[in-house]
């Protein structure tokens, strides 16, 4: 039996540890395509989170009735229903936003984050945990898209959320709002994130080795360290 983690962990793990963009590397298509500005990133992430939470909830509720052979088909129909609802509501109420996001709203259906969470989590866990997991992943997605969108918007068009932050003397880097800018920014952000994690890991390892030395532990092998979890 797998050890049950606390409900809070269920939510917070999606924020960073299993962040959909930086750790699971899922949902790259909307991530790269819509983050020309911070507001687009937020809108895309909110739409995705809505679909993610409701489809996870529903899938988790019906998980015991769905025969194994047709589970993917069932999940896709459920997800597609929520996506269509979001698309229609956005077209009716938020015309500008729906125009800016264009075909990427209907494409949430095939966003791997949603099917990924449905298959890996919601189909095996109870509704409460599934919703928390979906919310965590959604917020993680939101943070990533907002960060990416902000960086691209600041350098590419001198503004953030439409407010000018860089002086007129600063020539905007056009490449940042072109597709290439998305790849560059995402790559650099992932690189820095990994660098930070690596460094943290090394520090923990060294601290542990030092501690073992102090207490006079004889052998400090890789196995010993692995057991201590560093």
């Amino acid at each position: 039996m797998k050890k049950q983690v606390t409900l809070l962990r269920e939510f917070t793990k999606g924020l960073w540890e299993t962040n959909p963009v930086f750790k699971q590397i899922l949902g790259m298509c909307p991530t790269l395509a819509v983050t020309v500005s911070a507001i687009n990133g937020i809108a895309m992430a909110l739409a995705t989170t809505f679909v993610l939470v409701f489809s996870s909830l529903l899938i988790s509720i019906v998980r015991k009735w769905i025969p194994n052979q047709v589970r993917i088909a069932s999940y896709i129909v459920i997800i597609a229903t929520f996506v269509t609802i979001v698309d229609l509501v956005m077209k009716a109420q938020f015309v500008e936003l729906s125009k800016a996001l264009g075909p990427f709203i209907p494409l949430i259906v095939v966003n791997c984050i949603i099917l990924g969470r449905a298959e890996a989590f919601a189909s095996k866990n109870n509704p409460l945990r599934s919703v928390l997991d979906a919310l965590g992943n959604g917020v993680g997605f939101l943070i990533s898209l907002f960060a990416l969108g902000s960086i691209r918007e600041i350098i590419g068009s001198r503004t953030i959320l439409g407010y000018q932050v860089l002086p007129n003397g600063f020539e905007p880097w056009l490449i940042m709002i072109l597709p290439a800018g998305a790849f560059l920014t995402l790559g650099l952000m992932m690189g820095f994130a990994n660098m930070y994690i690596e460094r943290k890991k090394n520090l923990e390892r060294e601290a542990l080795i030092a501690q073992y030395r102090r207490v006079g532990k004889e052998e400090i092998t890789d196995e010993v360290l692995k057991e201590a979890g560093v």
Partner: protein
Amino acid sequence: MKQVTHIIATLTLIGVIAGGSLSLVNNWAAPKIAINQKAETERAIYLVHLDGKRYEEIKNAGFEVYKVFNEADSSVGYSLVYSGNGFQGKIKLMIGLTEDLNKTTSIEVLEQSETPGLGTKILEPPYKDQYKGLVTTPAIKLVKGVEPSNPYEVQSITGATISARAVVTIVNEGISKLRAVENKGASK
């Protein structure tokens, strides 16, 4: 057999529920979406005819075109929606034309996916304003490097010749199509 029934029943049930809930949402959203679209077209029609107060769609033209009337209910010309290929994708224009089709009143870009900062200059006044009162006979011509010397010439955009030329081509094509429909204006 029992399993097959279970599978079919599950999929049918999911399909019915999904379809049912979508039709409910659609019932609510469809009229709103229609209103939004209409408002948008209307806005664009009057953008190229500032004195327009009422418009009528010309049917059976094969493309979107509207006849625009002013306050006194006399015709001020046409608002023509026409699209063509730009640099990376389609460019969709709203073209304002006078009653005799020999002059443009102005143009408005409805949709485009040109290169930001270069091709998107077709949206900006220095280029766009050239279409205010531009003569359309014999045909609009794009000039590069030099100032336009004839009333039917448009100056190109440095670094975005393809986008600038695309707009000219779309306007010319739209006008000649409209002439054919309305049997008006100078023939070639």
